[in-house]
């Protein structure tokens, strides 16, 4: 029988205590893995979900709120700007593309995003282009002639169960303006997955205030200049205007990352404490087991096992417990992260696939096995120093 075999049998001999110890390690590891993976997922999702446009133009107010509402749809929109502002930008020679966006109400939690076909148009500078996988795009209706056609983001289509040709509305006041599903987008990674896209004409027709005004409302305009050198001038000019502001999405993203950094630092501190508590728990459990087993260890010594062999057996036993807890914890943590990602994606639409992030769980796995083995050193040294003759007699 090998030393590993003896360690395994020692574990079998205290199955319940071992299971509980491994479970406590697994819970700590799962918490660490899920937190790290989700935090990285959120960060990645913000990067992947950000816009390819360089400026977001909207009403005066918080630049962060403007970007968070228009690009990530994680905040309430600022007050409206007028469509004339958009028309002014469209005529500006310095601007290559200006895309109007109006954020409306929601159908079963999925927000209406009114825009034009320019929003979906491919361009060399776009990292990803949205594509319709079923049906077609909505028509770019002229004002006053709304078609009430809708194109659903992939997640919105999946969660609402709407299919091509379905007519839908939410609230009795909208019964007179039902929308018809004409297209469904393929899955992307950003907030567009959770959007219901309609034409501006349809949006204005559904909006009581918009129907009554000639200068129609918009939430924002996405802007890309012809030359990057024009960007500072445009930014300054739009911010000096009475009714608009221009925000750099990249700057807002940096603000978000700074906030995430603080949150992650706090989280790292908490997780470090969790790891220490878990390691101490493992060491205490093994110390207790070793102390209760001192007569058996003395017997092993009397049978010829040297002190190094005893040390190896106890460290092996502790390492096995830590490994069992680490493997279970990593699997559980990944499952937890996956479930958490689904929940966050369902609510916020920003979390990337946690299973695509390979190395943190592996690092936690290796670290746990190392810490677990180190935790076995204290009880192992206790066993190592045991006075054999003193402990061969029955433990009273």
């Amino acid at each position, binding site marked *: *029988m090998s030393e590993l075999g003896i360690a395994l049998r020692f574990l079998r001999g205290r199955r319940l205590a071992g299971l509980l110890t491994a479970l406590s390690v697994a819970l700590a590891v799962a918490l660490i893995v899920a937190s790290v993976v989700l935090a990285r997922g959120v960060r990645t999702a913000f990067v992947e979900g950000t816009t390819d446009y360089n400026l977001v133009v909207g009403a005066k107010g918080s630049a962060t709120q403007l970007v968070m509402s228009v690009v990530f749809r994680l905040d309430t929109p600022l007050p409206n700007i007028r469509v004339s502002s958009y028309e002014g930008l469209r005529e500006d020679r310095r601007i290559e593309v200006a895309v109007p966006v109006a954020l409306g109400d929601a159908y079963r939690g999925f927000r209406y995003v009114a825009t034009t076909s320019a929003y979906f148009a491919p361009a060399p500078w776009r990292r990803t282009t949205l594509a319709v996988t079923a049906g077609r795009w909505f028509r770019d209706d002229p004002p006053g002639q709304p078609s009430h056609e809708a194109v659903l983001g992939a997640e919105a289509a999946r969660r609402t169960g709407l299919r091509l040709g379905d007519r839908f509305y939410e609230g009795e006041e909208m019964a007179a303006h039902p929308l018809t599903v004409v297209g469904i987008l393929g899955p992307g990674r950003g907030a567009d997955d959770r959007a219901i896209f309609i034409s501006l004409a349809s949006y204005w027709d559904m909006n009581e205030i918009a129907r009554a005004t000639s200068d129609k409302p918009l939430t924002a305009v996405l802007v890309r200049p012809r030359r990057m050198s024009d960007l500072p001038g445009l930014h300054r000019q739009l911010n000096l205007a009475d009714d608009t502001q221009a925000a750099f999405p990249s700057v807002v993203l940096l603000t978000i990352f700074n906030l995430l950094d603080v949150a992650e630092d706090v989280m790292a501190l908490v997780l470090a404490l969790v790891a220490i508590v878990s390691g101490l728990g493992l060491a205490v459990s093994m110390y207790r087991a070793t102390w209760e087993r001192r007569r058996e260890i003395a017997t092993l010594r009397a049978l010829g096992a040297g002190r190094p062999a005893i040390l190896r057996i106890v460290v092996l036993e502790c390492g096995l417990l830590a490994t069992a807890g680490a493997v279970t914890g990593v699997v559980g943590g990944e499952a937890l992260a996956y479930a958490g990602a689904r929940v966050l994606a369902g609510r916020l639409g920003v979390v990337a696939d946690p299973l695509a992030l390979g190395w943190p769980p592996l690092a936690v796995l290796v670290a746990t096995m190392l810490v677990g083995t180190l935790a076995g050193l204290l009880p192992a040294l206790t066993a190592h120093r045991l006075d054999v003759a003193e402990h061969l007699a029955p433990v009273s």
Partner: protein
Amino acid sequence: MTDGGPAIVARGVRKVYARAGATPLPVLDIAGLTVPAGGWTALRGRSGSGKTTLLNLIAGIARPTAGSIEVAGVDVAALPEARRDAFRMRHVGYVFQSFNLLAALSALENVMLAMTFARARSHGEQRARAAAILTRLGLADRLAHRPHQLSRGEQQRVAIARALVHDPPILLADEPCASLDAASAHAVLGELVALCRGAGTTVLVASHDDAVLGVADRVLDMAELNRAGRAPVAMASA
């Protein structure tokens, strides 16, 4: 072991336990002890007379405060600990009063333990030898049983198997029948005698049981052998 010579020779062996904040406690003071090879020698004495301490010193489990103990021609008291462990593993079998079987291991695995650390035999050979001696002791159908699933008599037979499975030239037994009822003690003793006499094993057994003393070739009285019990004050200052 030297041919025809004694298996164990102890000279001037003393064991004194140091106690923090108290007078050192002498437990053993033996001027001389010789155990002939191949024989069955019994140590008779009441509890606390130093029998177990003497067996532990001979086995190299503990070191004497003074004196020499030659076992099979080697002064075990002079060996460093690692070499004492290795020496014991090859030359000494030890039967404990309370069996000292490992609760998490089966009967077969408990017996295999005696060969595990020597690493002289393959796993298969260890298993075969352990199964053979357990079978010889009437435990063929108990190989996979764990200690709590065995009677006390069966547990002691497993302990005997463990002490003898690696063919040690010397067997030390500490009150081998004290934890057993009369019937079990009789059976266990018979098996121990048969195994040791057949193999020519030198046996040193500590007991105050007349049945055990009755099978010995020679009985040594610890009251006469151990001077520590007679003059504790003098020993303490020694």
